[in-house]
């Protein structure tokens, strides 16, 4: 019996377990985080880069490119984009003109990786090549008739459909999702603030869910502690409540949806974040650093932090080997952590 099967057999759904010391002569007490088949070791020292040379401020989002490299977006203008290999070594960095760098989305456009950066301070979305050459800039969406100045528009996230359509979530502005074609021509907008299920409150993230027959959009309504699903044309479908969880952006890899939770409602402003993993039916199957909620009539009970692994996690990146990288906001300029599946 190897260690992997031993662990599978010895622990069913423990939130965090310790390996028996006999097996773990070299590192007694190594922690395992998460639940069910989504359990991880953690390496908080993954980043090998020198903070004096390559500083970070908030680490907002991360993606993996087709070469397997891990890209980090930070609002530190000495190096807005830091490119790592999977072992945490620096490959390169670029970007000095994104003071409000917040959202980072990668899209494979006809075989080429391109990036979409949401900049909160510039009130713009900027499309670049993988090494930072600007390809397209989207200014505030006057065409919607909802905005009178750029200041009202504070985009936090983008997602790109397979046909190249660009969806922008104005998560710190007016909470609209604005849809453009691949050239940046306005198509429509939906969401926005309001009373009613179809509206959003802090539309902080967006992704496309292709796991079921019909693709749909999943949009964060963070202060409502929920995701909302919309058709690709912006028609509201339903709400996925996650009581207590300030969900950032949804990220789908394989059969699972991963999301960094900035903090919990019960302990706001107290570094109470964690990371949730949901299955295809949007049910929480693992909570890294927190409780596994019970479900009553498909409604999860409150989710909250139990182990102070993270402060304010802001994004999850899942690499080609199912490792996770967690970027954190306002957490003492900490570099990303890496979690490796058990």
């Amino acid at each position: 019996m190897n260690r992997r099967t031993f662990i599978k057999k010895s622990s069913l759904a423990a939130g965090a377990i310790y390996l028996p010391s006999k097996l773990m002569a070299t590192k007694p007490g190594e922690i395992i985080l998460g639940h069910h088949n989504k359990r991880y070791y953690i390496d908080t020292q993954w980043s090998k880069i020198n903070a004096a040379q390559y500083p970070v401020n908030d680490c907002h989002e991360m993606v993996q490119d087709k070469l397997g490299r891990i890209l980090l977006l930070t609002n530190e203008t000495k190096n807005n984009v830091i490119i790592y290999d999977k072992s945490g070594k620096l490959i390169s960095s670029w970007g000095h003109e994104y003071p409000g760098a917040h959202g980072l989305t990668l899209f494979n456009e006809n075989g080429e990786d391109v990036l979409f950066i949401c900049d909160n301070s510039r009130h713009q979305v900027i499309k670049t090549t993988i090494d930072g050459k600007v390809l397209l800039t989207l200014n505030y969406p006057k065409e919607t008739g909802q905005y009178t100045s750029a200041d009202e528009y504070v985009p936090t996230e983008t997602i790109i459909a397979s046909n190249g359509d660009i969806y922008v979530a104005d998560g710190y502005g007016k909470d609209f999702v604005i849809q453009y074609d691949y050239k940046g021509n306005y198509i429509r907008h939906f969401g926005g603030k309001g009373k009613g299920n179809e509206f959003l409150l802090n539309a902080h993230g967006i992704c496309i869910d292709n796991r079921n027959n019909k693709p749909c959009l999943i949009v964060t309504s963070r202060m409502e502690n929920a995701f909302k699903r919309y058709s690709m044309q912006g028609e509201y479908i339903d709400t996925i409540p996650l009581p207590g969880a300030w969900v950032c952006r949804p990220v789908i890899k394989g059969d699972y949806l991963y999301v960094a939770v900035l903090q919990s409602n019960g302990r706001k402003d107290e570094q109470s974040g964690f990371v949730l993993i949901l299955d295809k039916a949007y049910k929480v199957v693992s909570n890294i650093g927190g409780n596994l909620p019970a479900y009553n009539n498909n409604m999860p009970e409150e989710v909250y932090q139990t182990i102070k692994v993270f402060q304010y996690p802001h994004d999850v990146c899942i690499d080609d080997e199912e490792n996770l990288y967690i970027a954190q906001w306002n957490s003492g300029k900490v570099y990303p952590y890496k979690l490796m599946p058990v």
Partner: protein
Amino acid sequence: MKKMMALLSLFFIKHTVAQQQFQLAPPLLKYASAFFKEKMDLQIMFNQPGTSIRYTINGSEPTEKDRQYKTPLIITENTIVKAKVFGNNFTPSAMAKGTFIKDGKAIQQISFSAPDKDFTSAKKDILYDNMGGDINFRNGNWLGYNTDTVEINIELTKKQTITSVCLNVLQDQNSWVFLPEQLALYYYDTKQNQFLPAGSIETAMQHPLPKQCVLQKLVVSKKVITNKLKLIILPLKKIPDWASGKGTHAWLFIDEIKVY
């Protein structure tokens, strides 16, 4: 077997990471309101295998030897509950604390200075409805002020001896919400036909304090028999230099008054 050991050690090397001890998060105290008429249930939430919640009701900081929480606590009198979580290989959590307050003397009505328009209430009994004790100042239970003086007039259902008055105040210094500089209590003396002083407390803002509800208790300094009380509250006029928002006028948030 040798091959397996080699594979195993490879696996260990691959996953060798800096060993780290994490702290447990504080447990969550769940209750509908910190104020109650006869009794209330207190649930303490912390679902993490291999850990236990320990609590006290005598004011001391919980240790691993204190009572283990298993089922909701039934509270029937003024009680301070302190709880902590312990678990092998984890640093114990910080302490969670809750103050639970039983209803006092029957109140006829309470009138109050007009609160800020964003933090007011249409409920006439907002300050004696036994609802509140939650640190979210936007939950509709709180009255918010950023004025220099707040006046509150309390009328009891009958004339009686008063020993103390309690005011629940929010402390949320990161949101510029501070305890008041001064609380002064007056009682209506029917013989002299005027309000006379019954006691006061002053609070000095010396250093940062955690976000929590603070029950400020004014003990009446002499024998007072009345059915009318007046509270004059002086919110903090200038946020201290060590706090965010320094120099600006602080906010005062109150959500409940009890008379004993």
